[in-house]
């Protein structure tokens, strides 16, 4: 018995010590690193950018397995201007906010739409892009002309995206009713399901929709009036210094034309 008590105490002490160390290894403060300290980054001098590289043209993996896309390019430029390294961390879209709350990410750059619900968990920078939801259907489908036609249909979406909320009847405009929603981890999987004919439509943001339709001859886009939505970068709640810094960089980039050239390069090509 004594032995057990001893072991347990030892283990507990070790655990306490370890957690103590974790807290203690916070970045040391030195005068010339003040600027960096203010951003409350996970890793010194590095902005860890979380993304879901399944959403062309905003983020995707290029042929060499490198992360690329508009969001990534903008964040790299922002990091450049702030004099910091940028590290990309790829994960499922729905995990991004949780990962940032768990202190694993500094910024989410994933074509994330600003919503009231998300604002409860993260703070957003200035919006950098305005998008809408598109419906993608098979080319010979003439039945679906608008969001109202989607009621009661089978719809494939990417889990946790605005398209998912719209199809699940949780949006505010053009709410689809009683649809059978199949949620996939990737937009491309939802598109595959549509191509296989097991769903009637895919609801997804306009730019990926255009990318997917360009790559698949048998699909087409159905446009309908929808609420526009604003993409913005998200940062940990209360990290105002970082928001300000990113906003400043974004404004600068818009002023000197870098932003437009990136739009040209990735989105309007």
């Amino acid at each position, binding site marked *: 018995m004594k032995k057990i008590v001893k072991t347990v105490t030892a283990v507990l002490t070790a655990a306490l010590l370890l957690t103590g160390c974790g807290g203690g290894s916070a970045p040391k403060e030195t005068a010339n690193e003040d600027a960096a300290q203010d951003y409350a980054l996970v890793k010194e001098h590095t902005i860890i950018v979380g993304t879901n590289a399944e959403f062309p043209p905003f983020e995707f993996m290029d042929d060499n397995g490198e992360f690329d896309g508009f969001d990534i390019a903008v964040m790299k430029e922002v990091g450049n201007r702030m004099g910091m390294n940028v590290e990309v961390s790829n994960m499922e879209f729905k995990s991004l906010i*949780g990962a940032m709350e768990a202190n694993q990410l500094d910024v989410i750059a994933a074509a994330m739409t600003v919503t009231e619900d998300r604002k409860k968990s*993260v703070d957003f920078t200035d919006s950098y892009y305005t998008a809408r939801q598109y419906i993608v259907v098979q080319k010979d489908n003439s039945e679906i002309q608008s969001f109202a036609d989607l009621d009661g249909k089978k719809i494939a979406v990417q889990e946790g995206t605005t398209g998912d909320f719209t199809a699940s009847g949780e949006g505010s405009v053009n709410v689809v009713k009683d649809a059978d929603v199949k949620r996939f981890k990737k937009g491309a999987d939802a598109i595959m399901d549509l191509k*296989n004919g097991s769903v009637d439509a895919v609801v997804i943001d306009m730019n990926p929709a255009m990318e997917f339709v360009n790559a698949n001859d048998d699909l087409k886009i159905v446009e309908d009036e929808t609420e526009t939505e604003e993409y913005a970068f998200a940062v940990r709640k209360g990290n105002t210094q970082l928001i300000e810094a990113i906003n400043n960089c974004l404004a600068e980039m818009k002023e000197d034309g870098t932003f437009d050239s990136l739009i040209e390069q990735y989105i309007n090509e």
Partner: protein
Amino acid sequence: MQAIIQTIIENFQICFIDGNRYRLMLNGLRMTILASLCAVVLGVVIGLIAAIMKLLGEKRSVHSFRGILAWVGHIISYIYIDVIRGTPSVVQLLIMYFIVFRGNFTFLCAVCTFGINSGAYVAEIIRAGILAVDHGQMEAGRSLGLSYARTMRYIIIPQAIKNILPALGNEFIVLIKETAILGYVSIMDLTKASDFIISRTYRMFMPLIGCAVIYYLLIKLLTLGLNTFERRLRQSDIR
């Protein structure tokens, strides 16, 4: 301390009570149990056939028609087990869903995938169980005038079942946990239900821990049942 408990209760409220999300978890749990139950039944049937096919072909000569048939069966069963054990179940599931079933009959697709997957492991379990029965049993049976099939049926299999059942229970446990990948093909199982809650609440702790606890309880229950069962089987043993 009180603050921590407060946060936990609040989180629990948001994740499971609001919007009746606990129902999602329960429906997910039902899907998990249903899919793994059906898959285990299918797996045992496929496994039994594969095991017998593999065993029959082992010692037959290729000089008679029946011998050749047994040999072909052996080869088929060998390739089946080899391929299924050599590929990850996620890949098998994606192939079944997107290529074989083309997105239709989602539940059937899930059952088939895991049934076929589990069948390969079950086949090896059954084969090992049969081989573990002392060779003298077969010799005794044959020397008393029983045919190969009857010796199998009345002497070998009853003894082999004792070896097989505990390992089969283990396979069932593995299978239940394997079904956690069903979310890849949009099936709302328990893991996917917690995924859904994460995507709506942006909280990870509660859904993930809740999901883990439910899996644990489910498997604990199963383990207890299996232990009792195994003890019963051992009652007649003199050891």
